[in-house]
């Protein structure tokens, strides 16, 4: 039985089911398509299982392979049975009978000397008819048809050809297949079943053929496929009871039949369902019916019914996994506190019914997988926050776990870790020692150092880390709290960051510390970069440079524009594409700043150096061409509005104070009116940017583009009153509409 390609994808995308309970650990593989999936009809969006035209192909080939006793290769059989046209069949037949010498296509081979000719003739005769039948039975499911799928005309002789072939056939293998073809033929072509409203006609071809010979053949796939068509006949007639009953028998037979049977199972009214139940001849049949109802509609009710009929029935396994996985979905909103009060009560009531039922069955310990029930009951109680009860069930389960089952053992471990961590109230060094191993195990799973197929561990990392962080927070241990749950406010204080740096660079770390740091998302480089950033905005350039020098892999590594240049109108893109003789990295930027500062201190060329420094400090704010400087892994890179910059750093990277200070210093040392005009206008820009900063701080829900135009301010007036004689003044008039409006009053 091939169930390929069904893999629980871990952590790669945010869209999969929220789950920490793997049905794979407890439920038979043949139920895999029906594992709970919040988004898809079949588990993990596996649409191949829904392919009605190809579902039985592998089985069919295997059956014929057995019939031929390996005389024909599987690819050859596959071609003849599934792919070849009538012409292809004829050609193969001609080859076997020596009428042609070359077999086509090249991919098939027939060794005629080894071949049982009689059997081949059987196959040939059967295929002639079967291919004819496929014209109406195997149809492409979708297309731009005018009436939904139009069936090609069926040869008038087909019915009699099929029945005479059936009557003449001596080979039971062939005969059963012809019987199947006849049943299917009547499903598609019998006039009496075409109308939906017609009553069931016991003389209908499909029923006559099925009933007359159903006892003649082995109850194999072909038998149950024929039964499936009979069920379809009843369904079409609106006799849901008979149809459901037959579908449930098919469902029970094999993996391949489960999907179409489940899909077709339907009750229109309650009377249909009651009548369905009445048709069940044994408790086992009744259980399958409840199982099917549970899978589609109501697992809790179904489990209750099944447990009463046979507490050992494995038909509850799938249902239990679906109950748990569905509750996790509910639990997820509990975890994140999203559930509205008004719905709480209704949910609570459903939870109680559910937990009580699962508890009561688990407590009996009388089914085939008591460990499964105890784990499930424990986990359900954990989800609904009854930790005491959860622990009790887990304890019982522990003693019942099958030996050497890696997945089940891991599942048990995962669930108990979740419970133990959630139960923690305080964490001292003893506790740390105790939780080191489980936390390491989880993080090893995350990093692929430990691999357990099908284990759904991913959400556990976040849940455990969050809870631990909360406890440390309460205990005032902000450093450890931040390792488990990274928070941006932590990085406002350089000494905090230094503590983290110290911890990361400490040569002798405890086992707990080593594990804890694996939960922490940032690298040492990122911390150094961040420290350098903070120091830069504090104007401690020497220290900043020191920190920046420690960064091994710089990110960001190159600034887009020359940060020492200024521009009348802010245009970052223009600056970015402008020719740059020298490209600055954050490090060379700081180095240059340092040398400018040294010169400035020494009183060298004060106007020019103050001007350059002012530009640099302007450019590394939100408004400048070098904002990339602060857009690190820690502060983040969202830049379309200052309101979206990480709150603790908004002021630092938007404030114009430093830039303005240096523009004013430059002005005080300027020699020409041109220079002064320039400095005044740049100070005006700082003044106006501060206005936008204020607007952004006071209007949380708007963006600065919506801000009203700022008042003209001090520096516009200065520019107008003192420097209208300059060339630069004319440039400003040309470029800056706000200034022009201020001057002209228009």
């Amino acid at each position: 039985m091939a169930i390929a390609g069904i893999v629980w994808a871990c952590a790669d995308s945010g869209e999969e089911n929220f789950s920490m309970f793997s049905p794979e650990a407890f439920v038979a593989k043949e139920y895999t398509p029906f594992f709970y999936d919040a988004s898809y009809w079949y588990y993990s969006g596996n649409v191949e299982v829904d392919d009605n035209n190809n579902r039985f192909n592998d089985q069919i080939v295997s059956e014929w392979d057995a019939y031929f006793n390996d005389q024909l290769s599987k690819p050859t059989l596959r071609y003849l049975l599934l792919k070849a046209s009538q012409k292809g069949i004829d050609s193969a037949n001609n080859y076997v009978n020596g009428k042609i010498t070359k077999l086509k296509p090249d991919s098939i081979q027939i060794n005629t000397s080894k071949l049982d000719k009689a059997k081949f003739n059987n196959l040939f005769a059967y295929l002639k008819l079967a291919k004819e039948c496929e014209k109406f039975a195997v149809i492409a499911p979708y297309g731009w048809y005018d009436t939904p799928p139009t069936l090609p005309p069926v040869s008038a002789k087909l019915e009699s050809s099929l029945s005479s072939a059936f009557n003449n056939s001596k080979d039971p293998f062939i005969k059963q297949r012809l019987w199947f073809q006849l049943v299917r033929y009547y499903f598609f072509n019998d006039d009496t079943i075409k109308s939906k409203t017609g009553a069931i006609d016991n003389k209908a071809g499909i029923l006559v053929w099925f009933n007359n010979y159903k006892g003649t053949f082995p109850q194999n796939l072909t038998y149950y496929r024929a039964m499936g068509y009979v069920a379809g006949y009843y369904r079409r007639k609106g006799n849901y009871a008979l149809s459901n009953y037959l579908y449930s028998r098919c469902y029970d037979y094999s993996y391949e039949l489960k999907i179409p049977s489940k899909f077709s199972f339907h009750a229109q009214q309650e009377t249909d369902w009651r009548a369905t139940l009445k048709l069940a001849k044994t408790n086992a049949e009744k259980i399958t019916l409840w199982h099917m109802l549970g899978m589609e509609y109501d697992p809790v009710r179904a489990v209750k019914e099944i447990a009463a009929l046979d507490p050992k029935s494995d038909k509850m396994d799938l249902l239990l996994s679906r109950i748990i996985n569905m509750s996790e979905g509910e639990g997820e909103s509990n975890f994140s506190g999203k559930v509205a009060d008004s719905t709480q009560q209704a949910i609570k009531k459903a939870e109680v019914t559910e937990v009580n039922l699962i508890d009561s069955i688990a407590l009996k310990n009388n089914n085939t997988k008591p460990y499964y029930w105890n784990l499930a009951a424990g986990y359900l109680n954990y989800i609904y926050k009854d930790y005491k009860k959860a622990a009790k069930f887990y304890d019982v389960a522990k003693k019942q776990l099958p030996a050497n089952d890696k997945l089940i053992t891991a599942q048990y471990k995962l669930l108990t870790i979740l419970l133990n961590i959630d139960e923690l109230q305080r964490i001292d060094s003893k506790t740390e020692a105790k939780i080191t191993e489980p936390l390491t195990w989880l993080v090893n799973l995350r990093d692929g150092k430990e691999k357990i197929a099908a284990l759904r561990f991913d959400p556990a990392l976040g849940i455990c880390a969050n809870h631990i962080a909360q406890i440390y927070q309460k205990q005032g241990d902000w450093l450890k709290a931040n390792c488990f749950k990274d928070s941006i406010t932590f990085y406002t204080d350089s000494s905090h960051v230094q503590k983290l740096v110290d911890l990361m660079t400490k040569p002798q770390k405890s086992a707990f510390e080593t594990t804890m740091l694996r939960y922490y998302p940032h690298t040492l480089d990122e911390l150094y970069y961040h420290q350098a950033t903070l120091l830069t905005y504090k104007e401690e350039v020497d220290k900043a440079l020191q920190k920046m020098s420690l960064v091994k892999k710089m990110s960001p590594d190159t600034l887009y524009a020359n940060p020492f240049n200024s521009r009348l109108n802010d245009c970052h893109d223009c600056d970015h594409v402008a020719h740059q003789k020298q490209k600055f990295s954050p490090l060379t930027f700081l180095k240059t700043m340092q040398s400018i500062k040294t010169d400035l201190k020494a009183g060298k060329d004060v106007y020019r150096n103050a001007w350059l420094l002012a530009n640099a400090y302007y450019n590394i704010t939100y408004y400048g061409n070098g904002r990339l400087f602060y857009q690190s892994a820690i502060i983040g890179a969202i830049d379309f509005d200052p309101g979206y910059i990480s709150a603790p750093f908004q002021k630092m990277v938007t404030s114009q104070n430093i830039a303005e200070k240096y523009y004013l210093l430059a002005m005080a040392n300027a020699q020409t009116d041109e220079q002064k005009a320039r400095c005044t206008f740049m100070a005006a820009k700082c003044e106006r940017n501060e206005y936008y900063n204020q607007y952004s701080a006071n209007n949380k829900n708007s963006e600065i583009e919506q801000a009203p135009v700022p008042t003209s301010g001090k520096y516009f007036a200065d520019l107008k009153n003192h420097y209208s004689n300059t060339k630069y003044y004319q440039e400003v008039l040309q470029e800056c509409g706000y200034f022009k409006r201020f001057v002209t009053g228009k």
Partner: protein
Amino acid sequence: MGNRSFRRYLGVIILACLLGSCKKSESVNTAFYYWKSTFSLSAQQSDILKQSAGNNLYLRFFDVNWNSQYHNAFPNAIINFNQRANSLKITPVIFITNSTFENIAANAVDSLAIHCSALVNTIVLKQKINYKAIQIDCDWTLNTREKYFSFLKSFKKVNGHFLEATIRLHQVKYMETTGVPPIDKGVLMFYNMGKVTTNASQPNSIYNQADAVKYISRIAEYPLPLDVALPLFSWSVHIRDGKVIQIYGNIGKKELSNTANFIQNENMYRAKKSFFLNGIYIKESDNFKLEEISLVTLKNAANQLAPHLHPQKNRTIIYYELANLNLSEFNAQSLNQISADF
């Protein structure tokens, strides 16, 4: 396209004013939608269609869905004719899911238009139906606007008939962002305006005055001639564990009034047990919120909307829909009275 239609529309207004009838347009047509996939009218349905709507029927021909398995758009629920429709005045309607346009490649839109038009023409040919106009129904959004509009352009080019499309209230309110489709005429869907919630006291989501107010003010600005679609349906909202899980048109007052199955509290009906009903599984304690449109509500809706519409000659009021029409509540006379309000 939009502009041209707008000019034509202005022309109509100006002409109407010149003739001195700017107050109210004289001729209003009544029509019905028919949305089931099997076309089969009862004698009463035929009667009301003839008497109130002069056999004007907007007939859903097929849906177009996105098939994620085959990564392609396919027609779905193609109409089956159990009786002749060629004596009626049929306007074919195609319902296209928005997800079709979310998924389809931009360069596949033209061929979708060709397919749709060809399928419509095959059906009309077979049924010997003549049609003058065709209507597309799609709840497009900002993301699908471009592809949907280019579909409409292609469709018009291929099909050639007068092209109408449904316009939802949010598309009127936010016309700048959702855009105005390149069509000859819009049909304003004046229903499904409220939120579907679990709250019993929340006003009817099909139509309620308060929600309508939020959308109604911009209708007059809409730059296309508009017909109007009004709701003639009811539904029940299936609520489980405090959450809306489905909406059903086939569970109504008749089903919910069965006291063996439900306990009623105003418009809420709580299931007394777990059972199947009309193909739906109902769990004990599930709630059904019944939302109905009565003659009075319908009249209120018409009265609220009418003053906001630009006068328009030959406006058609299309009622949704004929197959599920409650004939004990509505008759030809009452519907004609409502249409006359426009």
